[in-house]
């Protein structure tokens, strides 16, 4: 099971998904209309490390986070 967290202003409860890579996650999330404004501008972290490509394998217990545009300070 892979857990997906939506951070900051994305008002969405975490998901628990049976997936093995990020491309599968992209397909699932693209079907969710709630997320349409967020997928194109959010960064993705795997176990709290940012990733730059969908070419990433996932294993049981992994945690994915979606980070929408930031503005600290």
């Amino acid at each position, binding site marked *: 099971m892979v857990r997906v967290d939506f951070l900051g202003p994305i008002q969405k409860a975490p998901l628990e998904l049976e997936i093995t890579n990020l491309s599968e996650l*992209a397909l699932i999330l693209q079907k969710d209309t709630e997320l349409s404004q967020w997928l194109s*501008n959010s960064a993705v972290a795997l176990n709290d490390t940012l990733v730059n490509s*969908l070419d990433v394998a996932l294993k049981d217990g992994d945690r994915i986070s979606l980070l929408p545009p930031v503005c600290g300070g």
Partner: protein
Amino acid sequence: MGIESLYSLQFVEAEKVLSLYDGALNVPKILQDWYEEEAKSNYGAYIPFVGTVRDEDGIEGLSFDIYEPILESWFKTWQTKAKESGAIIKMAHSRGDVLLHESSYIAAVFSPKRRVALEFIEKFVEDFKASAPIWKYDLRDGARIYALSRSTAIQGSGILGVKN
């Protein structure tokens, strides 16, 4: 000292220099504490950057969400970069609501020489704005409204939105 003690020492050190507070920062106290912590470290230059909530566009204040695990790893990368130049960085940020004319952010560089400090504070603050996992909301009529138009997508964003 064994490997474990060394590791925990570094961890404590990293904790101390990144401080998160609920609500507004006590700016004079933080600036003083940092100055005194490094009083004998032989740094010639100390440059804090203090960010304060401006009264503009009719807001009542700002509010912040922070994702701490990634903020800490981002900060440690900068601390490593600073150490390579003989400098150190300290940072404080608010969680939750910060009202008009209160301060939500302090970053500071200490270095032996002024040039390194002047260059670091600028690069650090700009990367902080572009990369630190902190989300800002305007407070209006008691509600939190995400400040999307003033926010920056983190580098590498959008990979989940690309259709195959």
